[in-house]
């Protein structure tokens, strides 16, 4: 009995401590968060590199209804012509188109924003359906924003000209984010994601190499990943702004990856805004990856996405304010270019026996109108 009373007393004290901590985080009166503004965006995108040419349009329209809910719809298309090294060495070049449709609704209540979204992506041999919920809450007088999110995706995997092949994959993603105002000139963000995959996680077309012979790849049917990222943005006064980011990634396939990025943005006059950015990425290979396996194992893959490699990207963006009437509308035209160099450490070109590498060019032309 005495032990029960002591436990209840301890519980009350812990609740009191939690209450005082929450009081620190959310003092004073609440502020209202604004609904996302109405806007329309159109993007033409292109990626050319490693024998792959992917391009297409994307559009987004966002409109608020009675200042309570903001609805947005997106369409994204990828027309892919694939003659990558995998394809030309073990299959033949192909063309295919992917269509993606998305709908989302944002609702704002006091300092919180709730987003519900759904997306569907269709390819001739792959259908993916995704649903997500995200909640962001401003606390600490608007200096801190906490975000939680969850995404569930269900994919149906097929194979062209093989109606007997049919499989599925499920994906779960849990997100946590924190944005913090550090000073009147610096912001920081912290993101952490936990991801789980289950089902067919490879490609029915890709081959692995065992004792020099090509065989269908065999991937594990589960994967669990963790990723954490920190980002800093700082104001440089007349010299614009600067940002730095770092992400660490690890998963149960034994891939460990580091990503470092930096960028600089600056206005030139009233109408022009320029950005330059750099990114470095490096990863270790999955434990079942092999360029040419010399032992028989349950799982084996020669997917170069799972190999040891690094890539370095350098890019720039130029934004022009076409027309602006403060409080009414704002139209911007933006052009972006990035060059990325991929360098593989344990993936060879089977035609030459040399380590593989390639350069890729990414282009975007983007029109954005807020109203």
């Amino acid at each position, binding site marked *: 009995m005495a032990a029960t009373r002591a436990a209840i007393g301890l519980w009350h004290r812990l609740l009191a401590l939690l209450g005082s901590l929450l009081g620190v985080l959310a003092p004073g009166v609440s502020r209202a968060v604004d609904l996302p503004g109405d806007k329309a965006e159109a993007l033409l995108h292109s990626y050319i590199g490693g024998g792959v040419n992917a391009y297409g349009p994307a559009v987004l329209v966002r409109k608020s209804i009675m200042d309570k809910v903001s609805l947005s719809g997106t369409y994204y298309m990828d027309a892919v012509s694939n003659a990558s090294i995998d394809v030309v060495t073990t299959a033949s070049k192909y063309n295919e188109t992917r269509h993606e449709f998305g709908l989302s609704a944002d609702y704002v209540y006091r300092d919180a924003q709730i987003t519900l979204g759904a997306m569907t992506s269709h390819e001739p041999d792959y259908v993916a359906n995704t649903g997500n919920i995200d909640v962001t809450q401003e606390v600490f007088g608007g200096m801190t924003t906490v975000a939680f999110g969850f995404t569930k*995706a269900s994919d149906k995997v097929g194979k062209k000209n093989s109606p007997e092949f049919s499989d599925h994959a499920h994906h779960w993603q849990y997100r946590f984010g924190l944005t913090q105002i550090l000073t009147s000139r610096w912001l920081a963000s912290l993101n952490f994601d936990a991801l789980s995959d289950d089902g067919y996680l490879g490609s029915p077309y890709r081959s692995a190499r065992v004792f020099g012979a090509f065989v269908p790849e065999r991937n594990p049917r589960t994967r669990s990943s963790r990723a954490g990222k920190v980002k800093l943005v700082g104001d440089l006064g007349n010299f614009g702004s600067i940002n730095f980011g770092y992400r660490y990634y690890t998963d149960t396939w034994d*891939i460990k990856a580091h990503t470092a990025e930096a960028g600089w943005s600056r206005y030139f006059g009233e109408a022009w805004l320029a950005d330059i950015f750099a990114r470095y990425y490096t990863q270790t290979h999955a434990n079942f990856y092999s360029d040419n396996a010399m032992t028989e194992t349950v799982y084996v893959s020669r997917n170069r*996405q799972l190999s040891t490699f690094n890539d370095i990207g350098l890019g720039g963006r130029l934004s022009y304010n076409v027309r602006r009437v403060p409080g009414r509308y704002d139209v911007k035209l933006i052009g972006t270019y990035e060059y990325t160099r991929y360098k593989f450490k344990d993936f060879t070109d089977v035609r030459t026996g040399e380590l593989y590498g390639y350069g890729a060019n990414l282009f975007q032309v*983007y029109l954005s109108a807020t109203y």
Partner: protein
Amino acid sequence: MTILRALACAALLGATLLAGCSVPKLEPWVKPYERERLADPIMKLSRDSLPDKHFEHVRDVREGARGATGVQGGGCGCN
């Protein structure tokens, strides 16, 4: 296990002692009127959703790592 139990006891003891004390109230140190520079679009962590989505997609289908970018993506059979 012994170490874990010792740590749990220490945490409970610390929490109990702290609950008896008053926690100093932390005030927001950057006032709303000091956040003018932070409201500029060039200080945003993510500026344009469609271009960000394209970058995210290009990297997702070529790199082994994914996630923690703050960009909401969808699935595809692109890799």
